[in-house]
């Protein structure tokens, strides 16, 4: 029991469970299934971008990717344009999305490495360029995703939303890569002490590059799925996910100081972030109150996590 409590990821899951219980208590249990289904669907997008952001934040202080919203918009826009609503083009669209992810990630890291820019500023400046490309190629057109792909994005297998399954598979892949591969050890070592890792022979720059490419690749996949899910790409479709991606990582128990990742916590926090909004909604809170309480809850969780750490 002690071991379970001391796991940092348990807190985000407990918080998610508590908000779920409080929401369903209001409706006396009816609609619990629908609420869980919606949480899994919408939480999946936050979880996918959160997993990528987690890898970058693990690299240590100052490492954050601010280009996630722009990459999501760009990949959603270009993928839908490439598919042009034609049937059987889902794989083509996915390929375009992944290429966008790899390209933007490589560009971000080139700015960070070659120009020695702080990652926050480099990804911020680059994201302005990506946003422009998306605006230019979108031209206000709303292209529908191919019918098959739209069915997949909004569909379910055994009652679980397909997008949640994709998010789950990606989470397992990241978990295996972090916990069971040399690359994962390298990433954690670089995050704990980059200088020591470099002296120990870890190819630090290669590890950083792979993290920055992975985060944009995940954001691109999330953008592709979100555009298919919501019936088209919109220029502001990514804007909620900048703060969301950082919030789910931190609430999920990953250290903002770097060096410690937490995959299950990201999913718990993604569910929690959706559930807290729907809980406040069902209690009849207006938009203003909802935002204030969301903010206070985020700060409360960070304080709880830090006092727990200090008391150990």
């Amino acid at each position, binding site marked *: 029991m002690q071991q379970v409590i001391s796991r940092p990821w348990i807190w985000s899951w407990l918080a998610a469970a508590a908000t779920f219980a409080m929401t369903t208590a209001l409706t006396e249990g009816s609609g619990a299934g629908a609420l869980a289904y919606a949480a899994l669907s919408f939480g999946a997008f936050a979880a996918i971008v959160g997993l990528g952001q987690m890898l970058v934040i693990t690299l240590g202080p100052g490492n954050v990717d601010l280009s996630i919203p722009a990459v999501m918009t760009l990949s959603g826009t270009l993928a839908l344009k490439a598919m042009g609503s034609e049937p059987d083009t889902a794989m083509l669209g996915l390929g375009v999305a992944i290429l966008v992810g790899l390209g933007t990630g490589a560009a971000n890291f080139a700015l960070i490495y070659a120009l020695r820019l702080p990652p926050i500023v480099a990804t911020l400046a680059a994201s302005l360029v990506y946003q422009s490309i998306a605006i230019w190629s979108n031209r206000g057109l709303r292209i529908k995703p191919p019918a098959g792909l739209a069915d997949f994005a909004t569909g379910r297998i055994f009652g679980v939303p397909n997008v949640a399954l994709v998010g789950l598979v990606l989470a397992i892949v990241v978990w295996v890569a972090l916990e069971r591969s040399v690359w994962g050890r390298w990433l954690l070592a670089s995050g704990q002490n980059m200088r020591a890792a470099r002296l120990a022979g870890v190819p630090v720059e290669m590890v950083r590059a792979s993290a920055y490419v992975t985060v944009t690749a995940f954001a691109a996949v999330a953008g592709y799925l979100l555009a298919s899910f919501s019936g088209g790409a919109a220029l502001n479709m990514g804007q909620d996910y900048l703060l969301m991606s950082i919030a789910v990582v931190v609430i999920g128990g990953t250290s903002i100081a770097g060096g410690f990742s937490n995959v299950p916590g990201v999913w718990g926090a993604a569910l929690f972030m959706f559930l807290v909004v729907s809980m406040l909604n069902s209690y009849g809170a207006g938009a203003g109150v909802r935002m*204030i309480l969301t*903010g206070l809850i985020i700060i409360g969780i960070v304080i709880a996590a830090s006092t727990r750490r200090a008391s150990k």
Partner: protein
Amino acid sequence: MGQFLSRHRILLPIFSLSVLLAATFYMQPRAMSYFGINLLFNLAVPIALATVAQMMIMMVNDIDLSLGTFVSLVACVTATFLNDSPLLGVLILAALILTYAGMGAVIHALDLPAIVVTLGMSFVWGGLALFVLPSPGGSSPDWLRALMTVKPPLVPMAVAASVLIALVTHLLIIRSGIGTVLRGVGGNARSVARAGWPVARLKALAYGLSGLFGVFAGMTLVGLTTSADANIALRYTLLSIAGVILGGGEFIGGKVSPVGAVIGALTLALAASFLSFMRLSPDWQIGAQGAILILVLTARLIFARRENTTG
């Protein structure tokens, strides 16, 4: 040598602003007038104040992701309470500054990551702003409007105000004793504590100063736009971070330059005006701003290399 280099650091922001200004005048010679310059730097004053606010936080090694929503909230309060019942408005703004100082104290006392606490606070400020002003509107107090549209002799208002902001913050942060200690908190908080300074109070002071300049930013913004909405200044978060870095500041180590930060903010404001003169398609305006940012920051690299080889 150290002094020589620190003088060098300020040259880069001055150089980038001059190049951009020269390019603007080359494209549009008619901008080279009192009226033209006023137009070019129209929105520079609130951006400069927000950049200084961000600089106060970066000075103590933290980063403020809530600044844009905070400035929006101040704008909403200014356009409603400060206009309708000035005393209540002043009290609310004072309370906001105190909250900022309290935020700094809590972040220090509980050793919390500032990036997450300010992220949470950004939701709180945004919610409060929606509360104060659910739909765009309100109006600017007359005296504020008069202040922002004043036409001083020789140089336009925006330029005069920027020089004043740079001068005051330079005296406060670089020249004064307390400013030096505050920068010391960013350099090495532990040794400042060992020297007998109350670091928690110093951090609260830095955050309080940031809140003060954030309030000024929101008020001047309303003076220019004459009305407010809850999302009016959201982009100030990122603009202010970029402005501090453009001005030669660093994320860690208490290395900040108030004069540089103001010049960085002017560069960002000018970049937007420059692009509209270029008759660039609106699609590419944002992207070109990003490209200018990258270009100017690349110049920073040349200076950094030189420091390494000569230092």
